[in-house]
């Protein structure tokens, strides 16, 4: 991956509640993520991982509490704190080619020299030769590569991965792990939700287990780190 110049940015969740009708998805979550940290969120289905990441992406508004970036209030320097988001849904159009998808989102984000940036990213994710193929003809792994390229278009300082390895074969997981490793090493702040241990989870520098919408464990050390990922003691 290209290692662009950007200012490292951290996140701060303060007393976040999120309610969907009668369901309290997050309860009083307070977390401080330092710039450059690679945080793995673990927890059972419905524990609030996806909701927390979507709040970090500002796709979901918290019912209570606030999110701020590097101590700045939310909304300040908007373009600098627009996170890149990769989910298990690819968030790209099947009816468009890989290149058309990337150009579309690059233009929407007003990426300077959009064509050059798209060209670079297509090469980095290994899709240069399939640039003109419609995404609907791609394998799951190739779609996820397009998704990662889309998330990196504006060179975000924060990257959010919501179960990015879902549906990938071992080769795809290995490619994804390598891609995330390079992004982590470039100094980006990374938040990812995962199920269990994998090549990807081993990249984390911090593990947080969510349980029923609350932070149940938070560690940076080896043994506890592993137990959080495997839900031991959950």
């Amino acid at each position, binding site marked *: 991956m290209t290692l662009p110049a950007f200012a490292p940015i951290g996140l701060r969740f303060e007393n976040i509640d999120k309610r969907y009708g009668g369901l309290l998805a997050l309860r009083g979550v307070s977390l401080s993520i330092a710039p450059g940290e690679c945080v793995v969120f673990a927890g059972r289905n419905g524990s609030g991982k996806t909701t927390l990441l979507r709040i970090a992406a*500002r796709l979901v508004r918290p019912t209570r509490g606030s999110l701020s970036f590097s101590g700045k209030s939310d909304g300040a320097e908007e373009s600098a704190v627009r996170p890149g988001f990769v989910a298990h849904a690819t968030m790209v159009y099947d009816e468009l080619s890989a290149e058309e998808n990337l150009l579309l989102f690059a*233009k*929407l984000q007003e990426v300077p020299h959009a064509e050059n940036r798209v060209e670079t990213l297509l090469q980095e994710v290994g899709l240069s030769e399939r640039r003109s193929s419609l995404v609907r003809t791609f394998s799951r792994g190739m779609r996820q590569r397009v998704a990662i390229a*889309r998330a990196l278009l504006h060179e975000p300082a924060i990257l959010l991965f919501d179960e990015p390895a879902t549906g990938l074969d071992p080769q795809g997981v290995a490619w994804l792990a390598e891609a995330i490793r390079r992004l982590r090493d470039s100094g980006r702040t990374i938040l990812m939700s995962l199920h269990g241990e994998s090549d990807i989870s081993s990249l984390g520098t911090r593990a947080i287990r969510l349980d029923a919408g609350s932070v149940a464990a938070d560690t940076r050390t080896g043994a506890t780190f592993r137990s959080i990922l495997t839900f031991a003691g959950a």
Partner: protein
Amino acid sequence: MSLFANTAVLLGKEIRTEYRSRELLTTTFVFILIVIVLFSFAFDPTSDESRRFAPGLLWLAILFASSLMLQPCFLREQHNDTLSALRLSVSDPFAIFLAKLAANTLFLLLTEILLLPLFAVMYNVPVIPVLHWLLLVLFLASLGISIAGTALSAISAQARMRELLLPVLLLPLLAPILVVSAEVTRALLDRAPVVRWKGIGFIGVFDVVFLTALWLFGEYLLEE
């Protein structure tokens, strides 16, 4: 500036995907065509009868067809969660609505223009002398249908029973446009054509009011 730049980019995407799939245009065109042809054969109207009820029939067909067209408007953005990608990318979420309503208006208007000659022949109504007025009414009413329909499509796409919800919400909301458009069209197709300015003004006001409401509250419709 970025609102209109984003709108133009998104409108290009809407047109490109429709050009490749031809889902919306085909469905709408075929539906209106079937209604026009079937009613013509079923009632075999005289010229005077046609002038009286054909405008109402035309607008009813357009209204039902538009609900078919508007249904997938936001629904297909949920397939790969592309709506989230759009929300993360645009600086003003209103651009998403503007592009979609512009595309819907364009597709609806295109269908109407293609079917207008057939309508004139099947119902024996002279549209040429009042064509420019007719196009104005078609444009304003199609815009109104698209504005209200795009907003309701965004609401219904997140709801259960979404396929049922859109027509149930849309048809009553658009009843005023249907009634007024049919009345204005009837007056235009009369033996002594009259331009009903009050009716045209009403449709224009409907468009402005709903567009303003969409501008003010559209962002909330996209939230999860």
